[in-house]
């Protein structure tokens, strides 16, 4: 048996890295177990001519397609939206767009304001200092003064508008609608050892240059220097409990596949909204026959994605194509609830810069825009680098039938039962998506686009995995309390997107990390009586 540690964190991604760094100043012995490995800068696709091809192989966003030894399979057959993630040091921050909006104040009070779902037990003001701290640690570029948000000051200037951004800006001004340069975790100036972005192209599958902030190059170097131990290639099977019902540690398989038991005083789960409920449901004991900390029966339930409605078209001149980070602008024009619409809550528009040559060919072939034969070449030349598009990222409300369970048959390469998803898009979300598509068509028309097409929902659009171990003050209606501690197990914490009560209509990484920092601070403030 390994020596007991003070704090054991499972998962090294957005939230695990943040909580590890924050707790490091306690000088406690902290170990983090990560099922994946470090990704070297030379590993990233943009180093090679085959950079786009690798988006369909070892850097595919869908883990079932990618199927690296470090990935686990997911049965997503009963979901119109497929999970996308990455398993490695940095987790899915390796493979995200770096679009970094915060939740809005209203997102935390949806029951009070709109009469739906539940209010969060915390609010924007509570998280505000942690948003700011996280912006500094991750390195956020953006522009102060956005009327859609309470004032805040990103530490770096925004990403360039580019040709497509300018077109969108003019179109939005013509329509009188809000738009603003996105907060993004892509360095636009030299920042904390990271060089400014030189526009390597679409950086969702990682940044060879290190301009995009993933936690392997932001939080982790600081945390490791401060004494945190990060063990890679360690796949956790279950959280164990002692005779008092407290978490006693975890059983995991090390890089050689050998079973290990790591005892710990405190266990923190940071495995995302699918990985965390999977681990909890796999952690069965006499005390917790339905999975650890699951007396509410809510572990795995209320899964929320953000359904994405993508609308795009083509203009009559070359734009930016794959040059530069894929996203640079957002609009919050339709974010807040409007009683005049037939749905509650709202969505963000995120504006895309364009796509690369191969992606254009494949998407257009699938859509039937690209003929076979002599006409192929002429048709393709009217499409490549001429695409302009935007997505409505829609708030998904919690519904218990949308859930993560354990698949009865599917297992990962270590023999651990894999997750199964059952998910349907709600009527409210569908109306919201239709509204977004209609507005997007108006925007694209104003931007001079034609041949407008729609992909709704984006099939491989399950970036945001939320709600499956929700936060609340009532142990019968929530899994963790207002500072991330499980109601049932007082030394077990959750810091990832599982604890979200509602989803907002924004990319969640900024808020996930602010929450992790807030929970870490809550732990530090209560060290003397943490388990009371």
């Amino acid at each position, binding site marked *: 048996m390994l020596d007991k540690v003070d704090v054991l964190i499972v998962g090294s991604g957005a939230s695990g890295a943040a909580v590890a760094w924050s707790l490091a100043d306690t000088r406690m012995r902290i170990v983090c177990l990560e099922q994946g490995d470090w990704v070297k800068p030379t590993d990233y696709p943009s180093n090679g001519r085959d950079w786009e091809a690798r988006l369909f192989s070892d850097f595919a966003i869908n883990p079932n397609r990618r199927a690296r030894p470090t990935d686990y399979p997911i049965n997503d057959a009963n979901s119109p939206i497929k999970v996308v993630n990455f398993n490695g040091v940095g987790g899915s921050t390796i493979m995200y767009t770096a679009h970094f909006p915060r939740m*809005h104040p209203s997102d935390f009070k949806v029951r009070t304001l709109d009469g739906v779902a539940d209010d969060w037990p915390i609010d924007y003001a509570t998280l505000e200092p942690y948003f700011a701290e996280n912006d500094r640690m991750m390195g956020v570029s953006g522009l102060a003064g956005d009327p859609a948000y309470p004032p805040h000051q990103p530490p770096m200037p925004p990403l360039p508008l*580019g040709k497509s951004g300018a077109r969108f800006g003019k179109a939005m001004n013509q329509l009188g609608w809000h738009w603003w340069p996105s907060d993004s975790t892509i360095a636009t100036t030299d920042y904390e050892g990271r060089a400014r972005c030189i526009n390597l192209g679409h950086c969702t599958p990682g940044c*060879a240059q290190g301009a995009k902030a993933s936690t392997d190059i932001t939080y982790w170097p600081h945390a490791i220097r401060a004494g945190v131990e990060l063990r890679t290639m360690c796949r956790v099977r279950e959280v164990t409990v002692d005779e008092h019902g407290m978490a006693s540690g975890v059983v995991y398989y090390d890089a050689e596949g050998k079973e290990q038991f790591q005892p710990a005083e405190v266990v923190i789960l940071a495995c995302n909204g699918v990985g965390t409920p999977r681990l909890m449901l796999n952690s069965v004991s006499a005390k917790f026959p339905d999975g650890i900390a699951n007396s509410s029966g809510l572990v795995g339930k209320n899964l929320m994605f953000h359904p994405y409605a993508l609308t795009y078209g083509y203009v009559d001149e070359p734009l930016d194509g794959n040059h530069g980070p894929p996203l640079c602008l957002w609009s919050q024009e339709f974010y807040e609830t409007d009683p005049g619409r037939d749905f509650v809550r709202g969505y963000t528009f995120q504006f895309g810069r364009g796509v690369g040559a191969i992606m254009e060919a494949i998407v257009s072939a699938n859509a039937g825009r690209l003929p076979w*034969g002599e006409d192929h070449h002429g048709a393709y*030349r009217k499409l490549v680098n001429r695409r302009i598009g935007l997505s409505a990222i829609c708030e998904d409300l919690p519904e218990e039938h949308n859930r993560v369970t354990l698949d009865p048959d599917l297992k990962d390469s270590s023999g651990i039962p894999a997750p199964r998803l059952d998910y349907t898009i709600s009527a409210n979300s569908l109306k919201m998506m239709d509204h977004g598509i209609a507005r997007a068509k108006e925007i694209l028309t104003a931007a001079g686009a034609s041949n407008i097409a729609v992909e709704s929902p984006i099939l491989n659009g399950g970036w945001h995995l939320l709600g499956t171990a929700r936060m609340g003050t009532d142990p019968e209606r929530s899994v963790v309390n207002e500072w991330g501690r499980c109601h049932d197990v007082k030394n077990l914490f959750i810091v990832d997107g599982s604890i979200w009560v509602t989803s907002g209509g924004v990319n969640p990484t900024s808020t996930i990390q602010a929450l992790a920092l807030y929970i870490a601070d809550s732990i530090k403030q209560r060290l003397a009586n943490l388990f009371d």
Partner: protein
Amino acid sequence: MPNHDLTAEQVRDLRALAGMMIPQSAVYDVPGADDEKIFNDILRSLERDRDDIRRALSHLAAIGGGAFADLEAQRRSEVAAAFREVGGAPLAALVRVVLLCYYRDDRVMRSLGQEARPPFPRGHVVEQGDWSLLDPVRARPPMYRTINTE
């Protein structure tokens, strides 16, 4: 030769189909997808799509009643058109691999006016743009809802 697990007949059919999808063009000065260099790249790149492509080629042969590559030109066109209608996911995988390899060939990239190089380390230039476009938005009052906790 790469380990692509295709029979010799399937290799010939795949090459014939690739050339039909994207033929050589003197107008644009580009090779077809059946060009030797591009086609060898295709054969090397089947990997995760290998099974689907085998299924697609079997389906193609079934529709044509034999080797697709051996059909007369008119019959090939008819069979290919029928295959496009019913090929489903296996055909989509086949088309994807052909496009992945075709649109990274140096000659094709140059014909499109694109540099035949990896993105790193030189990167690209994206123009900063005119930020005065934001002036009307800057002038807007706050849009976010405030929470009255009273």
